[in-house]
């Protein structure tokens, strides 16, 4: 069983992390377009997307059945399925894999829910270490402003309503995300995460990302030569 940092694959793994409203998904989409145009074999993988576990997670969330422990373990199961059946084979084959959220999302959320930080890190120790992890650092107020109007209210677990932080879902979201940011900041030095200032113009952030990604792509396979 290979642990974090022990895998050796020809493919490359790029990860974006950050709270909702940090703009990370937009940036990953732009990176995806660019890598495709450059002729790389690039695959996008989303958090919480394993077909096997998704239905259980959905049902658990809908019925508010999940505790901190089962929330953590169900997400770890989902992640393991994607890791074993999707991400690792792709990396073996030399693909560029892009992940919108990775183990750091789990570390932040689970620890805020009261799970032991060491326990969660060991639980996910089977994960492949990313080539680069980008953390989109954004003040909570800026992220909240971006989210307002953009969507139809927060969901129960997304707002950390299971923690009883506040009766008001918007307020609960604010407090919960504040704690999540604290956890992310702790992980920046721990996991050598690259920080992107997510208050900058979109094209400026993207240029920074592309520069760093390009420097890591020496051995990745191109499907065709870029035009």
């Amino acid at each position, binding site marked *: 069983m290979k642990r974090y940092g022990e895998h050796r694959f020809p493919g490359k793994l790029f990860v974006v992390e950050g709270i909702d409203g940090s703009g990370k998904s937009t940036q990953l989409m732009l990176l995806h377009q660019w890598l495709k145009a450059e002729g790389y074999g690039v695959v996008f993988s989303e958090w919480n997307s394993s077909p096997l*576990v998704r239905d259980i997670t959905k049902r658990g969330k809908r019925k508010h*059945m999940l505790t901190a*422990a*089962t929330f953590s*373990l*169900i997400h*770890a199961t989902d992640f393991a399925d994607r890791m*074993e059946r999707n991400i690792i084979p792709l990396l073996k084959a030399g693909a560029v894999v892009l992940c919108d959220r990775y183990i750091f999302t789990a570390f932040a959320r689970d620890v805020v829910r009261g799970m032991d930080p060491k*326990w969660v890190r060991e639980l996910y*120790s089977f994960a492949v270490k990313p080539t680069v992890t980008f953390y989109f650092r954004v003040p909570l107020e800026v992220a909240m402003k971006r989210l307002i109007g953009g969507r139809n209210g927060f969901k129960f677990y997304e707002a950390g309503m299971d923690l009883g932080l506040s009766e008001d879902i918007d307020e609960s979201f604010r407090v919960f995300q504040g704690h999540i940011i604290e956890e992310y900041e702790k992980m920046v030095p721990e996991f050598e995460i690259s920080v992107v200032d997510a208050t900058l113009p979109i094209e400026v952030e993207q240029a920074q990302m592309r520069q760093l990604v390009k420097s890591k792509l020496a051995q990745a396979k191109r499907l065709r030569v870029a035009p």
Partner: protein
Amino acid sequence: MRETYGVVLPGMNLEDLSGKLIVIEGTDGVGRSTQIDLLKPWLEQQGRAVVDTGLTRSALAGKGIKQAKEGHTLGPLTLSLFYTADFADRLEREIVPALRAGFVVLTDRYIYSPMARAMLRSIDVGWLRNAYSFALKPDAVFYLRIGVDDLIPRVVFSRGFDYWESGMDLHPSEDMYDSFRKYQTALLARFDELSAEYQFDVVDASADVDTIFRQLRDGIARVLSGEPREPLFGVAGSKEGSEEAAAKKPAEMPASKGAGSEDGDSKKPQERTATQT
């Protein structure tokens, strides 16, 4: 106060869990559920309220595991985490509330079966120990121990070979019989390792149903009477381990049953007898 094997889950109060947590462990087809069906009414006759539970019976993940296993597409880590999620759900929603209410919780397997299975699928034992470290330490683990030669006829003449119980995911080119023999032999070896580490009370499961029942009944009666957790029928495992245990307090043994035909079976009772006298 009750203990866990490491971490304590958020919101889990370990005080006032006055019930008893009793685990029946053993490999597939060894007769665990037969014994539980006998033990439950016996306990109820004693005036004890019983909750029986078992692997993959959680409201959250139980059905999902069954469905996923039918597709035979689970990777070993995914399967292992699925079992852990199922266990956490049952621990929090079933086992702990029952213990708080003073019930006897009789569980058909606990964390050890999924650990043994995962170990055979190259999952690191250290990783498994951590994953399950939130589990409550039970009051007793009765391990129904059997050799593979005694196990095979039971399985064949009752329900036949099952894909997962035969480890067909590990040796897909073998026929079910060969694969079953290989897989269960390896699984029993892992159980013996866990037995030494977690101090199971070993019951010789090659005996007839009544004999096993009497041993379990006596063992459980002793646990319920509040005597300290001590090996009842001897602890399988390393020789040093059993000598050490014997030096502290000689374990009480029932009359030694005829040993099974398998190597492992015939060795252990001798060890026990030697340390006892």
